[in-house]
């Protein structure tokens, strides 16, 4: 996890106050309240249909809340969506590029729409690892290349807040790592990052704080370290060999009063092949809190 810098985080980039949204009878978002600090990477996690997309749409001015208030960069989203949209960048979950245009043309188009002067498309293309492919039509790109271009497009206006919806989905490990570095660089520049992802390791690695959303409600919000402290159980996992030669797993919960005794007994009575300690993952914690998995 990245260290937070107190002076940078002094103000809130996003304030969400008791926001609700419904599609007819379906309550997509039900009274969520949270804030995202300036310069923070905020992980927003939840399974499909939990209300993530609706929340992002409201935060980016695509939908207006039916109840409650959203303040982005100090402005009320319902009254200033245009001003806010000029200062944010969005990487959508769904690939929505102009396929008949080249990568550079796509980036220049959006730079023009944002009114960016002295825009260097090549530099951005290089940053996301698409060097030498800028003049090719997007229709010839692989899914991963398109995803990288989506991230690049979100960066054209050097926005104050970046909304990244599953930015590494479909990428190979190297490319995904490249995008994570881009995200960290953006945070270094001072951008606030609102990140949704299914990749729990990614959320854990990048996010300063994470929020779990389930059935339209925020069920947990804290740093991943604190969440693990609060909900997670550290365990010792061992693999033993029986007299018949079979391999079996053993698990000992740590931080109990008799953990040391259990470990001693294990080594005394069993033939231990491997042993290691394991921390609860965000996925485990989400399941523990909600009773359902993040990938459902």
């Amino acid at each position, binding site marked *: 996890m990245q260290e937070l810098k107190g002076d940078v985080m002094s103000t809130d980039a996003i304030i969400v106050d008791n926001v609700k949204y419904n599609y007819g009878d379906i309550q997509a978002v039900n009274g969520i309240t949270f804030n995202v600090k300036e310069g923070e990477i905020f992980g927003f996690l939840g399974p499909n249909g939990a209300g993530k997309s609706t929340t992002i749409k409201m935060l980016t*001015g695509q939908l207006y809340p039916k109840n409650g208030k959203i303040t982005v960069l100090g402005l009320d989203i319902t009254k200033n969506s245009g001003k806010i949209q000029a200062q944010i960048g969005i990487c*959508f979950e769904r690939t*929505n*590029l*102009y396929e*008949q*245009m080249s990568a550079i043309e796509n980036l220049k188009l959006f730079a023009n729409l944002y*009114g960016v002067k002295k825009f260097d498309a090549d530099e951005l293309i290089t940053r996301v690892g698409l060097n030498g492919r800028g003049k090719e039509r997007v229709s010839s790109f692989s899914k991963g290349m398109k995803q990288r271009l989506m991230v690049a*497009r979100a960066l054209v206006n050097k926005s104050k807040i970046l909304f990244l919806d599953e930015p590494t989905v479909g990428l190979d490990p190297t490319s995904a790592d490249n995008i994570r570095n881009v995200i960290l660089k953006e945070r270094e520049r001072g951008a606030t990052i609102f990140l949704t992802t299914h990749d729990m390791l990614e959320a854990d690695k990048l996010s300063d704080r994470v929020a779990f959303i389930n059935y339209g409600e925020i069920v947990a919000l804290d740093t991943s370290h604190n969440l693990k402290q609060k909900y997670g159980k550290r365990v010792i996992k061992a693999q033993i060999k029986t007299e018949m030669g079979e391999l079996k797993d053993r698990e000992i919960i740590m931080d109990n009063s008799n953990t040391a005794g259990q470990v001693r007994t294990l080594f005394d009575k069993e033939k231990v092949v491997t042993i290691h300690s394991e921390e609860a993952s965000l996925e485990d914690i989400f399941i523990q809190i909600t009773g359902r998995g993040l990938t459902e």
Partner: protein
Amino acid sequence: MNWHIIKTLISKDFRLFFRDKFFGIMTIAGIILYIVFYFIMPNAIDETIEIGLYAPQASNIFYENIKKEGLIIRYMKTEDELKQAIIDKELHIGISIPEDIQKSLLSAKKPQLFVYYSSDLSDEIKEMYTMLISEMINEMSGSKIDIDDVEIVLGPDMGGKQIPFRDRMLPLFAFMLLITETMGLANLIASELENGTIQALLTTPMKVMDLFIGKGITGVLLAFSPTVLLMVITGSLTQNILLIITSLLLGSIMVTGLAFFIASISKDMMSVVAWGTLSMIVLFIPAFTIIFPGPVSGWIKVIPSFFLVDILHRAINFDIGWSGNLNNIMFLMGFNIVFVFLGIITLKRRLNEY
């Protein structure tokens, strides 16, 4: 409203329009083909009538009598030759005059003539020929009814200068170009909706109004430019220039509204083409009434395109100016408001789904 954003959007749409192989090629090929068709079609109408005649015993005086303006007589050597020419559709009508006709006429007997028609002649045409033959015989027999007929032409006198077929087709060509561009614009918008790029656009500083103005200007330019080019190259912009330009501009606005509507109910290119073709079939009907003139049924005047093609036809082919087209202009403007309003409302509803 942000003109910088609108300009960027228009430039992007034009680039995408001409990168779409189907609509890009259709537009360019359409302009070229309609112009080529126009110039290879005859620029005059043959107003002469050719009649086959077998009259072995007729005198030179008889031949002199049947000569009429616009009438060409092809003399046949035998009656069989005459019949064969009609069967082969070389001629549509042939007259066989019996050898004893002059004798019969002199002795006040009723002579018998054989008139041969080709099988594809309509009853109306047959009747017209019969009247013509009766008049010829009357002149030959010297019993022509002595009356003074006063010919008065109401409207522009087109006698001897009939409108060539190609000029009758010009409003149709113009409308075909307009409809092609309608489908092109509808496809551009529908694909933006389908691919989600509209969502990306609307999360920039672009407002919905900028989007509508940008798409509207793109649509009008795409429809207006090729039709004006067609008019210029075919030499049709020599009279009533402002009226023709205005009507084409109004037509372009109307089809842009239609494109918005088609885009809002379509999911992909195939459905755009399907809805576009359906609209095309209905909107083309008035243009066909100009190609094949006759009394225009009242219901055709309910089709909005009638007012556009009628203005073009009157202005180009009859040199009728603003005063003679005022009603058409008013109706066209009324339909424009309806189409644009309907297009914007339906498309805005579709946008709200995103």
